[in-house]
């Protein structure tokens, strides 16, 4: 029971990070039909920025909001300056360009902050470790049914829960949400009801990158540091999460992310001989493969059926 709870919470908190990045992927995919390969690296840039804010003595609670604002700006500018002009010429080229952006952003991070793990006293960091949004000292845990659960893990899960509810409310009960859904469903008709589709797409990219920034900060908090490779595997899991949940379903992205975190940790925990830490990724992908065989559009994705 203790071990089960432990693995449950570990799995969910790890999965929460995948869920956040997957949400970003889904929001952009729904709005524009583009797969943003740079989603993880956009998040990483914002995470480095949050580290920098920390170095300047800004408390993490404020720094993360500023970091999300930086992320929003980065996403919005990317859409207006790069994605929009190129997608007019060739939608496929956008995918290639986001791969280029992936490399460019990683290079920029390296040029500014170097290749080492940060914070790092060797390069004069004032912070000892990457600030966590939740209490994260060795003594910060609660005991539930004999299991010692980190407060940080519970905090991360709660954060994703709140964010999911907030996003659901935005999508379904606000003007912006209605506009985003309309643009996703039919871009030309959205224009014809008077929606400024350009602004909506810009906001979608901004929102996706801001959520990604939060994901990056949460993950750096769990890892206690930020480095150039931090988001690489996370992005792969998050893409898998989006695929599992259905590429056009934000709720699916969250469920997909949490599921992948859970499957990995359960498999590694209960079948250490067969799976272990190294092979746990493989198990998650086997499950996804199984799901997609029976539901090609993912767990919650809409298969585009239309009556004619």
């Amino acid at each position, binding site marked *: 029971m203790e071990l089960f709870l432990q693995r449950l919470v570990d799995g969910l908190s790890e999965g929460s990070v995948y869920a956040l990045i997957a949400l970003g992927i889904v929001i952009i995919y729904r709005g524009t039909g583009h797969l943003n390969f740079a989603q993880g690296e956009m998040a990483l840039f914002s995470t480095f920025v949050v580290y920098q804010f920390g170095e300047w003595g800004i408390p993490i609670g404020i720094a993360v909001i500023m970091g999300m604002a930086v992320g929003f700006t980065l996403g919005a500018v990317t859409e207006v300056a790069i994605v929009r002009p190129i997608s007019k010429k060739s939608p496929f080229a956008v995918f290639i360009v986001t791969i280029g952006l992936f490399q460019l952003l990683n290079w920029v991070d390296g040029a500014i902050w170097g290749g080492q793990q940060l914070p790092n006293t060797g390069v004069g960091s004032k912070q000892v470790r990457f600030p966590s949004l939740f209490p994260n000292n060795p003594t910060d845990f609660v005991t539930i049914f004999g299991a010692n659960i980190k407060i940080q893990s519970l905090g991360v899960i709660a954060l994703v829960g709140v964010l999911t509810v907030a996003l659901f409310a935005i999508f379904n009960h606000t003007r912006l949400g*209605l506009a985003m859904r*309309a643009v996703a469903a*039919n871009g*030309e*008709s959205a*224009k*014809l009801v*008077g929606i400024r589709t350009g602004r909506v797409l810009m906001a979608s990219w901004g929102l996706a990158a801001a959520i990604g920034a939060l994901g990056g900060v949460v993950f750096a908090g769990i890892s206690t540091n930020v480095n150039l490779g931090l988001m690489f595997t996370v992005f792969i899991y998050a893409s898998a999460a989006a695929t599992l949940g259905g590429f056009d379903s934000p709720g699916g992205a969250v469920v997909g992310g949490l599921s992948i975190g859970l499957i990995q940790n359960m498999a590694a925990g209960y079948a250490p001989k067969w799976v272990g830490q190294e092979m746990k990724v493989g198990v998650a992908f086997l499950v996804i493969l199984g799901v997609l065989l029976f539901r090609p559009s993912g767990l919650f994705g809409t298969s585009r*059926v239309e009556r004619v």
Partner: protein
Amino acid sequence: MTSQTTLLNTRFLTAGYGPVTVLHGIDIEVNEGEIVVVLGANGAGKTTLMRAISGTIPRTGNIEFEGRSIKKDSTDAIVRAGIVQVPQGRGTFPELSVADNLLAGAYVRRDGAKAVADDIAKWYSVFPRLQERSTQRAGSLSGGEQQMLAIARALMSRPKLLLCDEPSMGLAPLITRELFNVIGQLNKEEGLSVLLVEQNANLAMHIASRVYLLETGVIVASGSAAELSADDSIRKAYLGF
């Protein structure tokens, strides 16, 4: 001519796609309270004409609406000015519910949720099938219901001029007849002005105040429905009897 006030007029309206010019200088007029029908065969430029007026494609020449040039306006500004287009075929938001489609139609309005809800109720009473299916996804509706939804959604913005792009396309004759009856009623009872492009001449002529004939991007004839039906060559080409 008439003493009616001109709502929309285009002067030498030219538009196309990239290097291809489809409309070669179109002059048309819609007066307040009229249903103007533009008849044309496939490829005549009907949809292009709708898009050029809505501003979804680049255009040259001049377009005046209520005496003001809207040539440089973006599509959303044109919708705000009071021209709204019902797109061809299934122009609904298939993944959104019927109710959300109507809400989206009211996107440009600023007169509050109450007024919008009242209008939704009003169009539900005009199109009872939509009310029955209000929580269903628009994509699951039949072709006729989707066309009704597209019209109701357009009306949600309270337009002064409704542009209809081939409303009969893909619909059974009976449904088409019902649809044109509704458009005719809206025109009589609400004073709604309509610019409608069609290749299904028979039904459209019945409700038309005036008719233009569009051939390969040029207006070749115009007049009242009666005048055009009286012309032998036109009758043969467009009405098939």
